[in-house]
């Protein structure tokens, strides 16, 4: 079934009786060419591109719960490619370009909305750092605009420009950044993969690997053994847990990140605004709710909820930047588990076990990476060669001293 304006009108006139389930619910086959563990954004995108771009038809995605129940459905939906380092910038720009053509590509409305991402700066040193970042982006062919105080005021006159501690000195704007409807990303990729013959198997937890003579032969699951020539693991916050079943220790800690949404308000925010100095970032959803967040809670956690001190901290940051939001009521807060890597950058690589591949360490920034992560992981699984734009995301970079330390925090995942 293809979606179109015509189809919507036809259904409206006939009582919406023609809509069909968007993907099948197949039983697992005894074996597949490629099994992808994790039905989040990255796993589903991987399967989609495996089938569509790399011609792999015999593929399954195994998800322990329901697809989209993990971080892909919990994040604050911001996409951008305003990175600094050479290992990162081309990858995130590749992702941005995929976002720009995504809806036409998979014929599904993901509400990709490029309304701009504005990072505020509050000191001369921060402005210098943003100038450098903007220049690095422009050198990579990415859009970046450095704004002075008046430039910021034109876009967002409601900000607190008289904050004594963190006066707004300007900002770095990426006009092509923005937000995407996160659930629709999971659903669109799931539907696209399904249409290309991928089996999406929900309620199927991977409980172990069958490894013989250093070769992975398949996975043990709550629905029995499933054989596979190749297994790709993309389980976000559960990375350490799942890979431990293959006997691996990872350069990863799991941490909780919270997000918040206010009651629906009239259109207020022009785009995404980030306030690094106060640990606060905010956008407005199409339903009108202010969607915002701050830092991770800061200690290892597998609880998919946060703790109160961070809620207080984030709301204080919000109040100091936009005092008027003190009048809005908070509707919900929730948390997701992220696999914080030791340098804050992701990993897309094969492992020492033949036939076992790993995708993870996305920290709190992996949503924007979903299309590129899926594409590059599919490339690796199909061809056994790293994709050009993900070539730096090696598992052994810590051993070799080739970290991609975008935030300059070193091996301190709780600071990234």
């Amino acid at each position, binding site marked *: 079934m293809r979606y179109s304006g015509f189809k919507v009108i036809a259904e409206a006139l006939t009582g919406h009786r023609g809509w069909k389930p968007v993907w099948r619910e197949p039983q697992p086959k005894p074996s597949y060419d490629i099994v992808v563990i994790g039905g989040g954004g990255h796993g589903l995108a991987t399967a989609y591109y495996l089938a569509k771009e790399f011609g792999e038809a015999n593929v399954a995605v195994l998800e322990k719960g329901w697809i989209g129940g993990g971080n892909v459905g919990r994040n604050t939906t911001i996409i951008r490619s305003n990175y600094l380092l050479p290992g990162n910038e081309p990858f995130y720009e590749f992702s941005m370009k995929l976002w720009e053509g995504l809806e036409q590509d998979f014929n599904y409305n993901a509400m990709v909305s490029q309304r701009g991402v504005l990072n505020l700066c509050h000191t001369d040193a921060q402005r210098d750092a943003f100038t450098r970042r903007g220049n690095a982006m422009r050198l990579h062919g990415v859009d970046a605009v450095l704004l002075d105080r008046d430039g910021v005021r034109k876009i967002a006159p409601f900000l607190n420009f008289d904050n004594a501690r963190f006066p707004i000195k300007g900002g770095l704007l990426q006009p092509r950044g923005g937000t995407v409807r996160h659930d629709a990303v999971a659903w669109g990729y799931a539907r696209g993969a399904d249409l290309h013959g991928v089996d999406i198997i929900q309620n199927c937890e991977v409980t172990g690997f069958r490894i013989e003579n250093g070769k992975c032969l398949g996975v043990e699951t709550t629905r029995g053994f499933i054989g596979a020539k190749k297994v790709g693991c993309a389980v976000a916050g559960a990375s350490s847990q799942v890979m431990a079943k293959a006997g691996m220790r990872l350069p990863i800690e799991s941490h909780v990140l919270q997000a918040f949404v206010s009651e629906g308000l009239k259109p207020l925010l022009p785009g995404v605004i980030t306030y690094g100095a106060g640990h606060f970032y905010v956008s407005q959803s199409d339903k009108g709710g202010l969607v915002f967040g701050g830092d991770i809670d800061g200690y*290892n956690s597998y609880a998919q909820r946060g703790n109160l001190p961070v809620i207080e901290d984030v709301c204080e940051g919000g109040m100091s930047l936009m005092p008027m939001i003190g009048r809005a009521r908070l509707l919900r807060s929730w948390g997701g588990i992220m696999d914080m890597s030791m340098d804050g950058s992701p990993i897309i690589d094969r492992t020492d076990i033949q036939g076992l591949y790993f995708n993870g360490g996305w920290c709190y920034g992996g949503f924007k990476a979903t299309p590129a992560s899926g594409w590059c992981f599919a490339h690796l699984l199909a061809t056994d060669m790293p994709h050009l734009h993900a070539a730096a995301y090696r598992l052994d970079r810590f051993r070799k001293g080739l970290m991609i330390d975008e935030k300059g925090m070193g091996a301190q995942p709780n600071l990234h």
Partner: protein
Amino acid sequence: MIINHPLLGPRDAQEFVYLGDAALIDRPDWQASGAVDRFYEYLYLRDNPAGMHRELWFHEQGDRSWLVVTRNTVTHEITSVELARDVARSRGRGK
């Protein structure tokens, strides 16, 4: 979260700074054979369990002592709090 400090009694976790896995106490000997590999593992690799986790907390806004806190990473329940100094000594370290 409330951390029951062995010397000061129950304190709000907000007074503390978190470092990570308590295995960081066991810094490898830089002169031992295989030190490069052991430092790589020490610095970067983690067990990262879902469940009981022994971890280091620094009482920055208090007596500036280091504590080893045993906490469940799924429920946030804290079952024991020890002075990191005592833990290090019990493993034969001088300080």
